[in-house]
């Protein structure tokens, strides 16, 4: 049967989009705080003030005339990322990893002329990739030198760690691995592989590609099960602190592991996707209920991290 019955999903504790919106994001995420999360620049500013590391910001393009100064911002840099400040779902992000004469080399190997790049930045400013099509800003930041542990299981692009934080308690996590199909991006709906992570140990469990389970990376063929995510406890506490900082009750925290700088915060998401449940082979609902029951006694960040490592260990 290609269908599951609603009862079976309920027993599995699956959180689906209607419930996420009606019972979680709408109630626990105050509208006023959204700009902090939706605008990646605002997020950067917010977390840097509290000492959380982020990828270095190289430059900012706020108005079309500044797009002409793109060369100045980029200087001689070879590795950089251009992002829309208010983009969603990875839209409008370009990752560069080299140069060839006057052109820039994208992480997928394609070349992009300076003129094309400027046009892309202008599209970003026009609001082509932003939520609701409002005018936007573009920024250039460093391309993370990701930790070698994921080298064999990434195709171009930068793998990241997505942690769902509920009431400032990390509840579920996955590693997102770019593939050829996702064009170097770490978004699952674009074809990246999501790999569930054991909350207790930081070891990867099974993966998911689209809606189907996988055990190897589709491009490199390396097994994706049993990898140890470095600095696991630190990642969890970073995620928990982001929950505190933003005041968002239901939050997706995207972190990357730089081989030198360690964990960096990439972005926050007020409407994180639900495929993380497929990657972990487990529903979110029981975990959310457990946190809701016991949240009042978990004061400190350390308490919350310990709580999630103890309670949400993989079976």
């Amino acid at each position, binding site marked *: 049967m290609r*269908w599951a*019955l609603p009862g079976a999903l309920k027993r*599995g504790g*699956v959180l*689906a989009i209607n419930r996420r919106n009606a019972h979680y994001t709408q109630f626990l995420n105050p509208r006023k705080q959204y700009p902090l999360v939706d605008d990646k620049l605002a997020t950067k500013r917010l977390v840097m003030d509290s000492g959380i590391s982020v990828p270095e910001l190289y430059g900012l393009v706020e108005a079309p005339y500044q797009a002409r100064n793109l060369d100045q911002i980029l200087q001689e840099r070879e590795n950089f990322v251009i992002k829309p400040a208010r983009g969603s779902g990875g839209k409008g992000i370009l990752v560069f990893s080299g140069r060839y004469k006057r052109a820039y080399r994208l992480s997928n190997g394609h070349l992009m002329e300076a003129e094309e790049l400027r046009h892309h930045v*202008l599209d970003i400013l026009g609001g082509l990739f932003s939520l609701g099509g409002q005018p936007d800003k573009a920024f250039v930041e460093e391309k993370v030198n990701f930790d070698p542990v994921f080298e064999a299981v990434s195709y171009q692009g930068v793998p990241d760690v997505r942690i769902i934080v509920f009431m400032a308690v990390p509840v579920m996590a996955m590693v997102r691995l770019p593939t050829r199909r996702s064009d170097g991006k770490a978004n699952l709906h*674009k074809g990246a592989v999501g790999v569930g992570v054991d909350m207790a140990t930081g070891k990867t469990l099974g993966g998911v590609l689209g809606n189907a389970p996988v055990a190897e990376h589709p491009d490199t063929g390396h097994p994706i099960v049993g990898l140890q995510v470095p600095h696991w406890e630190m990642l969890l506490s970073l995620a928990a602190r982001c929950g505190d900082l933003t005041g968002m009750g239901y939050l997706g925290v995207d972190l990357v592991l730089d081989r030198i700088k360690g964990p960096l915060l990439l972005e926050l998401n007020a409407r994180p996707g639900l495929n993380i449940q497929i990657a972990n082979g487990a529903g979110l609902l029981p975990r959310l209920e457990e946190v809701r029951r016991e949240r009042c006694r978990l004061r400190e960040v350390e308490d919350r991290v310990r709580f999630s490592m103890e309670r949400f260990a993989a079976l």
Partner: protein
Amino acid sequence: MNKSHLYIALILSGLGLGLFLYKVLALGFPVVKETKASIWYVETHVTFEADGGPVKVVMNIPGNQATLRVSDESFVSPGYGLTIKEEGVDRQAIWSVREAYGEQSLYYRGVVRRLPAKDLPKFEEAPSVIPHGFDGAELVAAKAILKEAKSRSADLESMVQQLIKIINRPKPDELVAPLLKADASVRDKALLMVRILALEGIPARLRHGVKLEDTREAILIERFQVFEKGRWACYDPITAEKKSLPGQECLFLWRGESPQVTVDGGHNVRASTAVRATLEQAMENAITRGRTSNPLLIKFSLFSLPVRVQQVYEVILLVPVGAFLIVILRNLVGIRTSGVFMPVLIALAFRETKISWGIILFVSMVLLGLAVRFLLDRLKLLLVPRLTVVLLSVIGFMVAISILTNHLGLERGVSVALFPMVILTMTIERFCIIWEESGPAETLYRGVASLAAATCAYLVMSWHPVGYLVFVFPELLVVIMAFTLLIGRYSGYRVSDLVRFKAISEKQR
């Protein structure tokens, strides 16, 4: 959990259903549109050029017949004297004037009502048979025709049909030729058949009529009638097909031996008949009842608006129905369409173009627009100017398609102009982005999903009972609002979730 939406939904649906039931039960508004109208206005307009001398106009006018009754007749004929000549059910209006010059214009108006079938008289008295008037060679030829028709038939019905077939044989025919000129009209043929049947003593006649359906220029239809078993049976005088009784097919007839209108003392005679069906009897009664028992309700209802505005609201009130369908498709089924209400607007356009043409036009417009959009990509235009260029080309395509299809005689294609062009432009831009970001497969999915949603919306919105219900009972939209509130707080699984999260439910087992 906050339950206020439940109470609001309950109150809203209570209000809506209450008003609906009051209108149905107390005022007697019909819930289902009567499929056949029961009142028609029939109007015949005669124009001709008078020669300057005395003029006499003879027009065949309808009389009561079977289940149809004529009333409220009026004759508009300034300066003319009018007499009405009645022979049983056959009636003629005769206008005459001593002197008339130039263009003349006469009107006949009548109201036709359908009676319930039970009032139908069972049998009519057999009419007298006209003398056949054949002699000599003509009599021999007529008898030969009758003999052949008889030899090939078993009863009266099949004999009449054979007769019609013989008379209508492609010429020249040795049997028919002596009796009928080569260029004989339908009327000439029918008159000949009447005379041939008179040889057997069977009464027959020719009738003209119009279909009782909304039309500005009704086409005259001929019926050859033969008196059989106490009734006039109807045949098509050319195909010999047996037709149902006039009342049943809403055919309104008058005598047809002479033309509909004959004018002495005039030329360039033109006669056209218009038919207009009116509000159903039950609805009219309900509104009249409402005016006396609850004047405010009717005074402040859609029926108080001018007819043109009413027609606009007939369409506008369908939009919420389509939007509700989109709510169901998106929040309960989980189909991702491109743009929230785009399918509803496309469906509105489909109403005019009809579904197959609509889909062809929509797909071709989007494909052409996408082609332009991909060409524009090389020019590296800014976002808003680029959208405007796409909008301009969309309008250009509309004009081109309209002109082209008009020349090809494809009437439906002309209605491409009804597509909401701004929505089309945004759709094209969105498809283009989806194409670049997520590839052709996702674009195709979105396109097909949007088109499927539009088709669903069209099917619901163009289903006549739905349009009738929301127009006559707009309070039902409040009920739709109540259901929308409920769906707005529905936190269960969508149908798409059942497929998407199947892997997890298996693990739990």
